[in-house]
């Protein structure tokens, strides 16, 4: 009958738990699900990372290709992030063109990359006005159990740190680029943005890292992205419950802490490969 109660009155169901300061999955309000990171497992990609945040799973593969820069910005390369939420990852997505959700998250990723300056587009330029790199960062969600934004950001950052680009020279005689697939160079990662998402329930309870159910029931969500120099590079609160500045400040502090932790995780992971 428990299941029935849940399906019949999900909101009431959650209220009961939150009154007790605990969530149906046994977490406390401020508790974040286990974060597992795995890098470099897709050998066909220049860089790859798989992140598991509780059940939510996102795999990010980065393919690097060569192209000509635009006339307006001859010194800049491209970073093209796309988040794919296929029907595989949740019953709420149907086959066909990207859902609104996918488009929104993709755009958020693009903004985060731009605002944080995680990669300087100038670094991707090889020959001014002639040749530059384009990094296709495709984040593929394999299991959609909420808080896909945080998961995507971690996977993106880890994958970028994992990228190795072949050395490119431009041959004098032909002027065509020649790549040396043997010599691989890492990418210069300037900033480490990490996102933390909060949910508001019943216009009162604030909790971190919402699951899919929680996202559906939440009366508002808030995503804060911070960099290692304790700066905020994206504060995204699309509508929902109005929040006072003190609560926002509290969220910011938690976000900073979380970001610290995740950066450690990524660092740790990269070392574990090298050693």
């Amino acid at each position, binding site marked *: 009958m428990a299941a029935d109660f849940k399906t019949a009155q999900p909101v009431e169901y959650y209220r009961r738990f939150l009154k007790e300061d605990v969530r149906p999955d*046994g977490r406390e309000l401020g508790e*974040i699900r286990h974060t*597992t990171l795995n890098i*470099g497992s897709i050998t066909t990609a220049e860089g790859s990372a798989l992140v598991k945040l509780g059940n939510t799973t996102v795999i990010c593969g980065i393919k690097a290709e060569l192209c000509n820069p635009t006339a307006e910005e001859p010194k800049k390369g491209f970073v093209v992030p796309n988040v794919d939420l296929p029907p595989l990852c949740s019953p709420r997505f149907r086959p066909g063109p990207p859902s609104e959700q996918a488009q929104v998250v993709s755009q958020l990723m693009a903004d985060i990359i731009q605002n944080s300056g995680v990669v300087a587009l100038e670094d991707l330029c090889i020959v001014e006005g002639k040749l530059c790199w384009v990094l296709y960062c495709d984040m593929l969600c394999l299991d959609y159990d909420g808080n896909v934004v945080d998961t995507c950001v971690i996977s993106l950052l880890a994958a970028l740190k994992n990228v190795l680009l072949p050395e490119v020279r431009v041959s004098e005689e032909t002027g065509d680029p020649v790549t040396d697939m043997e010599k691989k160079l890492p990418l210069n990662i300037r900033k480490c943005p990490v996102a933390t998402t909060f949910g508001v329930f019943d216009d009162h309870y604030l909790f971190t890292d919402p699951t899919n159910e929680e996202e559906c029931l939440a009366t508002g969500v808030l995503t804060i992205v911070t960099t290692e120099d304790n700066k905020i590079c994206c504060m995204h609160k699309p509508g929902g419950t109005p929040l006072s500045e*003190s609560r926002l400040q*509290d969220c910011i*502090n938690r976000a900073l802490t979380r970001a610290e932790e995740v950066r450690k*995780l990524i660092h740790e992971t990269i070392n574990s490969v090298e050693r």
Partner: protein
Amino acid sequence: MKEVPMSTCEREFILSAIRDRKRIDGRQTYDYRRLKVAFGMERGCCIVELGDTKVLAQVSGKIEQPKKNRPTEGSIIINLELSPMASPAFEPGRPTESGIEMNRILERNIRDSRAVDTESLCIVAGEKVWCIRADIHVLNDEGNIMDAASIAAITALSHFRRPDVSVMGEEVTVHSPEDRDPVPLSVHHMPVCVTFAFFDQGEFLLVDPTRSEERVMNGRMVVGMNMHREICTLMMSGGMLLVKEQVLRCSQIATVKVAEIIELIQKALDKDAQARQAGEKCGFAESVPSNKITTNKKEPTSVDTTAAAQHASQVIQEAGPVDKPVSNMLVQAPGTVQIGEGLVNTWQVDDEDMESEEDSTKKTATNGREAVAVSKPTERKRPVKTVSHAEDSGSEEEEKVVLYQGDVEMKSTEEPDATTLKQPTSSNSDKPAKKKGKKKKAAQK
């Protein structure tokens, strides 16, 4: 959302009125509604009002590669947007039949009649040319979008100025407006559409039909014409038969109307030019009338932000310092690391400021805390923790096997081990179930 269907009696009324040479808005058969052309702040931006019908046009240009077959010609794109703003019947996304048709007419009328010289848009043959794009948004549909759109399009095109470009050998430099004055497009002639609505199998005709007239008409004819009485487009739709006299009559009327309209456009353009010469402020923001009851204006106001700084610091003070992470790394395999739950603490801080904030939540907040106080014997939390740890070892298992590179032997050894890993999840899930059983009873009480 759907259009409200038209009642039969209204339809009959309009028709009968037309039969005895009357129009419901009191116009004569060949009268146009009041035509107004206003220009925006940017170049190539204008709003055309034809009675209540309202259309916004914006011309923009960017440098692109020319088409292979026309290496020395720039391109002109005309895009008519039947915005959902104009009518509930218009859906966003893919254009409708009529939308495409009208877009075609516009293209024929302006692009195919070579109203704008495309050769002059060439910068470097075969490499760089200007691509001029005219976006026309219908803002309010009260009938005869066609004419309004065509007027807006040509007006915007002749109002537009593109940045000047100079070519030094390989180098192509695009000059900023401060650097060099932008240059206008070379507009050869100004074709404008005039729409005729026909009733009773073409027996009666009207110029510039309103929406209600459009809904009862059984056919329309669009005549695109310029000053020199050259017909640029002629489009008949509605599947009615016309006697050729009618067609001739229409073209005659068109010549007169076109002359009027173009004169008006010219006036407007000149007026705007003078205004810009005199350096007056222009743009729609200025053209908002302040005398109307529906409008309201406020002059620049100053805001005192002295308090901001200290208030901010005060807030941050209250929030207290950022606590350091208590993370426990679990290196599972080269390339796979995992951390457990990060911030383990409840939301005391909030409860504090909840109280300070509003009394309504105060009660819940406080007794929420009491609840915490009583219902937080550590052993209640413990199982959750242990469980979740067990579980993460599980998920870790999964992880490692899922994506640890190659080396399948170890995976297979993992396999039987992996059987343990689902147990915790199940126990985890039925834990709340028990809880809720209790709750359920509570509910029944």
